[in-house]
């Protein structure tokens, strides 16, 4: 009896559980402070910097990195590349959890979260001329679409065959909805900054910023699928069936190749953006050098590395490049929303996130990982349910 208890305690107190547990406790304390004492207690936000890392990181990066959902599902169902089918479920799960995190972060960030929960901006007072309205509406609908795309996984787990079969029949319609909604809000997230030409540094501000955001979201989606697959291989290898394992390596190669091409296109339109605004002279300023670090180090370099990896069939290089690119996308979103924003202000007046803001963002990412781990461990994500083999 006592040996059994010791064994249970051993499995419960793994390094992951202990670290995640501490983060969750800290996150809950910050949550309590946020909703009882207000935004001023936990954040460094102000009237000049109303958007902090909960928007710049949790929302901007969350939406971009969740683009794997629409990228893989459209490749598989719309373009008929059925050989990528095994990657659809993990991608949809990542996207669903990513968007859920975005929405929860937004509840923390807005001044009157109850109104958001009651869909006030959509029902009572619609700001139909605002891009933010479009982003909000698209994210809300897309989260619902992702939830419906995700439902076959828990329905198979729960053994609810009839509802599961209905949901499977809706796959194509939901995928098309997903592509349309993603195209709209991924680009509109960038277009939000069109309203602030004097606040955003000219090298990041561009009339084409909506296109930049959309194209970079495709890169983020492709890279995230490879990156997430690499991590999952380490954590959930035992849960993966033969089909998934067989299909994964060709997928990494093809996605790496596709990512290198999209990165080349993205690099080209960024150069065209500089030329169209005649911003060449800004490249030799400190901000210009930082811009070059992003453009050469996190766009041109991964483009080249992906190309070499795909050419030489070097999976290790492609996997490393995927992580590098994901970091680059995060850097780009932080540059646009925080680092190059309000660039003319002295450092003393600039926004620097408080420790509690950072703590809450870490809490959000940890909660996402815990949810992913639970679902991937218990439900048919990396393997086909024995009752539904070859029926997808």
């Amino acid at each position, binding site marked *: 009896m006592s040996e059994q208890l010791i064994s249970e305690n051993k499995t419960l107190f793994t390094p992951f559980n202990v670290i995640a547990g501490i983060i969750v406790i800290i996150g809950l304390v910050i949550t309590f402070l946020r909703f009882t004492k207000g935004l001023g207690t936990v954040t460094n936000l102000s009237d000049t910097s109303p958007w902090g890392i909960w928007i710049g990181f949790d929302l901007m990066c969350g939406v971009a990195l969740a683009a794997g959902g629409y990228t893989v599902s459209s490749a598989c169902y719309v373009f008929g590349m059925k050989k990528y089918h095994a990657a659809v479920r993990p991608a949809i799960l990542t996207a669903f959890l990513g968007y859920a995190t975005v929405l929860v972060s937004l509840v923390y960030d807005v001044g009157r979260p109850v109104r958001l929960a009651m869909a006030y901006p959509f029902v009572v007072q619609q700001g139909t001329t605002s891009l933010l309205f479009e982003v909000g509406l698209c994210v809300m609908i897309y989260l619902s679409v992702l939830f419906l795309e995700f439902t076959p996984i828990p329905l198979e787990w729960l053994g609810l065959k009839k509802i599961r079969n209905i949901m499977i029949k809706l796959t194509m319609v939901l995928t098309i909805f997903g592509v349309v909604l993603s195209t709209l809000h991924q680009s509109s997230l960038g277009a939000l900054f069109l309203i602030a030409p004097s606040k955003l540094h000219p090298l990041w501000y561009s009339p084409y910023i909506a296109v930049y955001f959309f194209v970079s979201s495709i890169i983020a989606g492709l890279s995230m699928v490879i990156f997430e697959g690499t991590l999952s291989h380490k954590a959930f290898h035992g849960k993966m069936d033969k089909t998934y394992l067989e299909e994964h390596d060709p997928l990494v190669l093809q996605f790496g190749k596709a990512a290198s091409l999209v990165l080349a296109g993205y690099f080209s339109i960024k150069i065209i953006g500089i030329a169209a605004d005649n911003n060449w002279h800004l490249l030799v300023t400190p901000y210009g050098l930082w811009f070059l670090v992003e453009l050469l180090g996190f766009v041109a370099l991964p483009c080249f590395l992906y*190309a070499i990896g795909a*050419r030489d069939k070097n999976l290790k290089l492609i996997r490393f490049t995927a992580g590098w690119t994901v970091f680059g996308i995060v850097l780009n979103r932080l540059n646009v929303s925080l680092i190059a924003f309000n660039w003319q202000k002295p450092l003393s007046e600039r926004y620097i996130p408080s420790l509690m803001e950072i703590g809450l963002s870490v809490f959000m990412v940890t909660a996402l990982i815990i949810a992913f781990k639970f679902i991937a461990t218990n439900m048919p994500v990396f393997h086909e349910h024995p009752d539904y083999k070859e029926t997808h």
Partner: protein
Amino acid sequence: MEHTFYTLQEFMLHTESVTYIILAIILLGVLGFWLFLTEYDD
């Protein structure tokens, strides 16, 4: 070196010209990149 433009016409002529030259370079670059990427393909 920053050039001073006195009219919108001057600015547009300059930026459009540079953009077209860059586009031509990109088109050639993409061709080369594609050949490099698919060199070992079956």
